[in-house]
């Protein structure tokens, strides 16, 4: 080591002297009391870290099959089943046919001759008795009846029935217009007007039968 190097080293030592002295006189680069403090702090931190690891939920360590299932996992199948059932029920309910409302009945009679016939039967009264809630229309003109016959109510959710007693043709025409399906036409012959009440009763049965389809 030459003189320059020696001088430089001595200068460095003098510059570092205050701090070097703070690092202690012992054989260790660190004062003993500082090392003791730092090691104690390290012990505390390691212990604290170990406690945190042990306190973590056991579910992190256990095999997935062994861990206790949450309430959601237990009930999820039931919740799914109930939801699916509710959906099916809702679909069925929304698509089912509406309530079986009674048909709307309209009654008319065509009698171009009038009381001149002289059968003694009062067909209007019989019609009124058969369908008490309905007032029969009386026509003496086939064209007017035709117009009435073609006039069907629109937007009705119920079955509409037109019963036409054509006294001239001796027949009862039963026209059914259901909300779904093609119109139905039934003809009942009235050979003897004295049997009109029976025939009207069968017409009623026919209407009932056709509306329940």
């Amino acid at each position, binding site marked *: *080591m030459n003189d320059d*190097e*020696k001088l430089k*080293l*001595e200068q*460095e*030592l*003098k510059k*570092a*002297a*205050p*701090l*070097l*002295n*703070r*690092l202690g*006189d012992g*054989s*260790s*680069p*660190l004062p003993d009391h*500082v*090392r003791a*403090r*730092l*090691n104690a*702090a*390290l012990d505390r*931190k*390691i212990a604290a870290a170990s406690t945190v690891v042990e306190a973590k939920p056991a579910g992190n360590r256990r095999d997935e099959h062994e861990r206790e299932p949450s309430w959601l996992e237990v009930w999820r199948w039931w919740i799914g089943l109930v939801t699916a059932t509710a959906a099916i029920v809702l679909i069925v309910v929304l698509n089912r046919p509406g309530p079986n409302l009674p048909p709307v009945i309209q009654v008319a009679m065509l009698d171009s001759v009038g009381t001149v016939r002289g059968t003694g039967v009062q067909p209007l009264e019989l019609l009124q008795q058969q369908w008490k809630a309905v007032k029969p229309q009386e026509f003496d003109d086939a064209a007017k009846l035709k117009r009435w016959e073609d006039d069907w109510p629109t937007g009705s959710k119920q079955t509409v029935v037109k019963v036409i007693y054509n006294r001239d043709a001796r027949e009862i025409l039963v026209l059914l217009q259901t909300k779904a399906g093609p119109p139905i036409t039934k003809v009942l012959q009235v050979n003897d007007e004295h049997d009109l009440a029976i025939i009207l009763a069968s017409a009623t049965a026919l209407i009932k039968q056709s509306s329940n389809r």
Partner: protein
Amino acid sequence: MWRRLVWLLFKPASQQAQGSVEVEIEQLRANDRTAWNRAFEVLFAISLSVCCSAAPSMNHHEQEDVAVEAVEEIYDYVGKVNSFEECKRLVVTISKNRLLDRFRSKATVKHGAGQVDSLEQLEGFEAVDANQRQPDALMLAGENLMILKRALLGVPEQYREVVEEIHLKGLTQQETADKLGLKIGSIGVYLDRGLKALRQNLPPGWP
């Protein structure tokens, strides 16, 4: 370069612990006590260097407290940093922040609540060389301090004592001879041998 190569190949085993201390971050994460003790030495030296340069008028015990607290806090960061080098830089920042906290609380007590944002605003803070304020410079200063300390510890005891008494404690050769019970003629020889041994223990090109 040749001198460095020779030094690397033939340096005595006792000198292998001296020089720049290499600590692996994985060892610290694994709570390796030996690694942590080596790390403490370097980190404390750096932190103390920061405290002494930034707050030279602060009480020595308080400076030591700040340095110890700063090093203790490093444990919480080993999982987040990539290398020990980052730990060294971090301890500089933490040390400054802790100094700031201490000064701030004192300023609050003395002057009432106020805004203190930097060490420069505080009483007791002395302007230091601009380079010294840079984190890397502070870190290097602390590391060099530890390298020097380790190198000194590697010097044979009878020579080291003379070097310490004269250059670190400022005694004269006569005072040193009286204190250590040596002849005055031996002091010069011991000092020379001590400095040579110290130079050999230091890495080539140091500081």
